[in-house]
């Protein structure tokens, strides 16, 4: 022990305290200049449209038409075209909704929570991750909005939004489903606002570059949204404060959104749903799946646009470690659910969990365990984190696993009701399958438009974390 040799006559105070100097990872490699960053990011937008972009856009557009066809058929026919039937009255619609909302959470985590924690590595991935959030919320919103069948009823007679129905009755504000309407619409709105605020300085760069290049139309379009930004430090001062406040409120927001989503299940009386562990377990799972999606999207972008100096191995390591941490939390939650089911001695609860692992849906349960608990453990190893192709494949497993998690939670509990006479087995209808896979097309179309027309990385924020940005020239001293 350190105290063993303390001289009792004098207080043990060191003459000088030398904190351990941790080597800081470089966030932009090869000692690039500020204008290299501008040229690199703006060059993507200003250059000609690559052929792969058109191919990817066509494929995504075709896939998106499945969703469009699926919902047109649904609205014109009725919600019966989906495969739900007693006792499984909630299935793919809410599975897909929770899946997409969860994906979005990584974007807000990167833009808000990592901002508050001063994790500077967030800067090169936050723009694309926030875009992912917004598009994921769009895909998620399709399901609750269209599950009302006659979709206009979502608003005007107030199935979702608070307008009185035909009998002048208002929505039930005691229900977590109604809380969800507010949580998700606030989440979508605030995400768009946060994203737009981040875009303003970068849009100003594009405005001026297109103006100098003689492209008045694009200059006017980017300029309209740049709001006349001129890089004034008096503006930056208010801007930075606004950004900090938005990060500060987005943090409780993102935690509340998946908490409220989990309340949809946790406040019910159904075995397997009625558990207090749900809010933290859902939030961890959401961040886990979201980072999976961030890697799935960013690794190809990094390779295509040669962004290795901006998204470095350090960035990939950080994301892999977050996946490892949240995946392990999720794995712990799976174990704890079993423990509580046994320890709580409720026979229905016990049955629900045995049935999950060994019943008719055991195949889905074991896919979930493999993808969510086993997959992230590979990220303990540096050699695996450095193998970009393997990281990308593992990130897809994470996405698949988290979809199955929601499927397992929702469907297994409903399919085995309290009375064996009301047991059933749910399979999705073709309409559901098409509608869901189409949402990947919807997401793809939106994301491709984003990378073609908007700066995929926040130039101003990246410059601010480069060593040259330090007014005391800190990089020379070390």
């Amino acid at each position: 022990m350190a105290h063993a040799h303390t001289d009792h006559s004098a207080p043990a105070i060191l003459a000088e305290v030398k904190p351990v100097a941790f080597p800081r990872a470089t966030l932009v490699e090869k000692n690039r200049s500020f204008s290299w960053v501008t040229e690199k990011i703006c060059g993507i937008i200003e250059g000609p449209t690559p052929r792969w972009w058109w191919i990817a856009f066509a494929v995504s557009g075709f896939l998106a038409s499945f969703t469009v066809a699926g919902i047109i058929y649904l609205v014109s026919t009725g919600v019966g075209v989906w495969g739900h039937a007693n006792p499984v009255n909630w299935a793919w619609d809410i599975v897909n909704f929770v899946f997409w909302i969860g994906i979005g959470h990584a974007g807000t985590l990167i833009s808000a929570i990592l901002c508050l924690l001063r994790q500077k590595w967030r800067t090169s991935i936050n723009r694309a991750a926030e875009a992912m959030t917004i598009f994921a919320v769009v895909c998620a919103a399709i399901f609750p909005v269209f599950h009302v069948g006659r979709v206009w009823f979502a608003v005007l007679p107030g199935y979702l939004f608070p307008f009185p129905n035909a009998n002048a009755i208002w929505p039930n504000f005691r229900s977590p489903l109604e809380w969800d309407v507010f949580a998700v619409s606030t989440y979508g709105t605030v995400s768009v606002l946060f994203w737009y605020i981040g875009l303003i300085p970068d849009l100003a760069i594009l405005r001026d570059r297109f103006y100098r290049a003689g492209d008045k139309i694009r200059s006017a379009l980017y300029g309209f949204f740049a709001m006349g930004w001129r890089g004034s430090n008096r503006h930056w001062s208010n801007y930075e404060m606004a950004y900090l406040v938005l990060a500060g409120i987005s943090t409780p927001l993102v935690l509340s959104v998946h908490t409220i989503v989990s309340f949809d299940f946790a406040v019910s009386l159904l075995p397997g749903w009625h558990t207090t562990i749900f809010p933290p377990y859902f939030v961890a799972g959401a961040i886990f799946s979201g980072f999976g999606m961030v890697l799935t999207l960013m690794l190809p972008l990094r390779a295509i646009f040669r962004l290795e100096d901006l998204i470095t191995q350090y960035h990939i390591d950080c994301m892999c470690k977050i996946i490892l941490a949240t995946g392990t939390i999720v794995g712990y939650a799976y174990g704890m659910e079993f423990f509580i089911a046994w320890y709580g001695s409720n026979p229905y609860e016990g049955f629900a969990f045995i049935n999950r692992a060994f019943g008719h849906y055991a195949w889905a349960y074991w896919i979930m365990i493999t993808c969510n608990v086993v997959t992230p453990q590979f990220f303990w190893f540096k050699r695996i984190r450095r193998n970009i192709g393997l990281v990308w494949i593992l990130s897809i497993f994470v996405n698949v696993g988290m979809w199955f998690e929601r499927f397992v939670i929702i469907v297994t509990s409903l399919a085995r009701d309290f009375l064996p006479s009301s047991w059933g087995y749910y399979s999705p209808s073709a309409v559901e399958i098409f509608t869901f896979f189409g949402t990947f097309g919807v997401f793809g179309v939106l994301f491709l438009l984003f990378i073609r027309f908007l700066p995929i990385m926040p130039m101003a924020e990246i410059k601010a974390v480069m060593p040259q940005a330090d007014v005391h020239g800190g990089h020379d001293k070390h």
Partner: protein
Amino acid sequence: MAATFYGLMARFDTAPEIYHAAQQVRDAGYKNWDCITPFPVHGLDGAMGLRRSNVPKFSLLGGLTGFTTGMSMIWFTGAFDYPLIVGGKPYFSPLFAFPISYELTILFTAFATIAGMFILNWLPQHYHPVLKSKEILRGLDDAFYVVIEARDPKFDLNRAKALLSQAGAKEISELEA
């Protein structure tokens, strides 16, 4: 049309240079002046002598409005306009009204914060002498500028130029309004 003189724009090439230049302009007692930087330079607010931003006051106002809106909406619909017993629960309770009020607090805070930022920065402002200057392209890319306006009470063309050169300006240009 004869262009009116707006002020001086002096270029600096690095972040430490603009930081020290800003300190000198601040100490010289100028009021109507500004720095143009491609990114928020850490510590420049202090070097310019700017006070803490007032944006959080807007945020607080927005948050309070949001929370009140949530609570009163749920009270109005459930306990006043059409009281209906659901599951034997009270017509109104701040407990079940809390999650929605919480979300609306955040929603209104976000709008108020952004509105506050735009109002305090006097944006959108699509016309400005700095934007008209050819230098703006570099001002948003990799160069740093100090702009001293002619309307500043202490402004004197030669003395301002001397101050900026002494602060290490690489190039000084005149801006027209």
